């Protein structure tokens, strides 16, 4: 009887611990969000969106940094996502089952988890050194390289979900492969592809390490792609570590802004996934 009791006790203890582990995980998310709201809300005002980053001690906003982040993220996605879509299409369709695609799939996985600071070093060597100066363009390229493997992966996964019967039906009507892919497979996988797009935007808009020595930072308003540009992550990095109160306040506000934007994107993407699941009757 004591053996049975011991097993029951063990069961209760182990399962309670797993509940505790989950609570710990949730507590960290809660703690981080709470800190951001507590410190970030104090600095929320319209000047945040109408003025550029100030010198220490005077008032200002984050306009130039918000603009720089949006522009570099947009260019990064516009360059990275189409290439990722095509490469993912190759893996799921033309190259399916070939040796080359398994090599590319592996390389893509390595890129997906490669440290982003390494991508920054690469773009520094390849672009910044050659052009002779830091630039928004170089920052955008490093973001594109980070977005690329994310879109390749989601594209391949989503295209693989399209039922073979649909592809066969299109082929049987005499459609060429490209027509089947563009006219049948892409529309069928649409919400999945959009989800992947949103997730890669979320991923690159908070990246800091690769921007440190590609886009650098800029105290002033700049819309020149060929010059250093301000951006939210690097502003957070510099301002949070500065001794000036107004800079630290701006860093908290920037941190709150960027986190809210990214969480909103992620939640939107997940809502799309569940809509997709409901639509195709999975789960």
């Amino acid at each position: 009887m004591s053996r049975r009791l011991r097993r029951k006790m063990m069961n209760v203890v182990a399962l309670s611990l797993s509940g505790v582990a989950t609570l710990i995980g949730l507590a960290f998310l809660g703690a981080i969000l709470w800190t951001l709201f507590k410190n970030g809300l104090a600095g929320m005002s319209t000047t945040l969106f109408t003025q550029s980053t100030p010198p220490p001690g005077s008032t200002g906003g984050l306009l130039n940094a918000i603009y720089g982040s949006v522009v570099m993220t947009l260019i990064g996605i516009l360059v990275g996502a189409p290439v990722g879509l095509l490469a993912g299409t190759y893996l799921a369709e033309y190259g399916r089952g070939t040796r080359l695609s398994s090599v590319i799939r592996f390389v893509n996985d390595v890129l997906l988890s490669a440290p982003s600071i390494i991508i920054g070093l690469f773009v520094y060597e390849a672009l910044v050194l050659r052009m002779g100066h830091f630039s928004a363009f170089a920052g955008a390229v490093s973001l594109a390289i980070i977005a690329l493997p994310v879109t390749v992966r989601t594209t391949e996964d989503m295209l693989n979900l399209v039922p073979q019967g649909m592809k066969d039906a299109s082929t049987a009507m005499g459609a060429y492969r490209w027509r089947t892919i563009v006219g049948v497979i892409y529309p069928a996988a649409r919400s999945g592809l959009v989800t992947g797009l949103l997730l890669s935007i979320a991923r690159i808009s908070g990246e800091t390490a690769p921007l440190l020595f590609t886009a650098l930072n800029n105290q002033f308003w700049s819309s020149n792609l060929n010059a250093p540009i301000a951006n939210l992550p690097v502003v957070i990095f510099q301002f949070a570590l500065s001794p000036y109160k107004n800079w630290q306040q701006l860093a908290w506000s920037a941190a709150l802004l960027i986190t809210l934007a990214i969480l909103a994107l992620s939640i939107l993407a997940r809502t799309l996934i569940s809509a997709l699941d409901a639509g195709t009757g999975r789960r």
Partner: protein
Amino acid sequence: MAVERLAATATGRVAATESRHAAAQRVRERLFHGATFAAAILVLTVLGGVAVSLISGAWPAFARFKLAFLTESIWNPVTERFGALAPVYGTLVTSFIAMLFAVPISFGIAVFLTELAPSWLKRPVGVAIELLAAVPSIIFGVWGLFVLSPLLQHSVQPWLIEVLGPLPVLGKLFQGPPFGIGIFTAALVLAIMVIPFVSAVMRDVFETVPDVLKESGYGLGATTWEVIWKVVVPYTRTGMVGGIMLGLGRALGETMAVTFVIGNAHRISTSLLAPGTTISASIANEFTEAVGDLYTSSLIALGALLFFITFAVIAAARYMLLRLDRKALSSV
């Protein structure tokens, strides 16, 4: 693929009549096929480009210091002597301690999500943990510096020093004043960042266990925990290790969060509470300020080391997950 072959011969016959429309379609087909192929090759080229540019950038440092670069802990920009030992040590130690915290907690979360949570709770909790993964690393850094470090400095670290400090051997790890920032704090922040990744992979591999196996366990009278520990865990062992390695890969390369809380000191201390540095933190801190080609090259050499360490870890992880995939497929 009989249908496809049939369709191919059918299109072949139509093409034989050589209408202008078909010719245009064939050109587009070739263009589209070519474009997807080129994009796929570009993925290969990017990785190749990263490797080549890192090696060529690191070459001056490697040529100058040879093996001493790996074995010396001197990092002196004034005399231009550079050794990678301190950052390499910091990277490995912070990541190792981070995994010590992250693996049990991730395992608990995965167990909770797959075996324990009622279905109405599964989704919200799962999404919340995934959101933790979406939070940018710089946010973890700011939070770690302004919230976690003071907390550790005032309540956790004095306790560690007092209770564990006097112990033989183990006590060496908990010496010195409580700085707040340092190796230990960095490891803790890394652990928090890695938890969502490891628990997501573990949850996915747990779901590959066939229900029949688990039901046989229950049929023999096993408790839920016994089914998890003696059926689910042995079945998914390679996949779990793969997930842990993926998390380790993240931890090794993580930059911004670590840069905030590690203290950025190029030295190796036996105490975990002392400030240190990691490869990525050194690069992030010093790269834009590095004066002189040898200094820059040494930092890129650090990057090259990091690249090869993470490459090895990620490759091993992928290989293990792939093996589990095959097993899952063959058992279906």
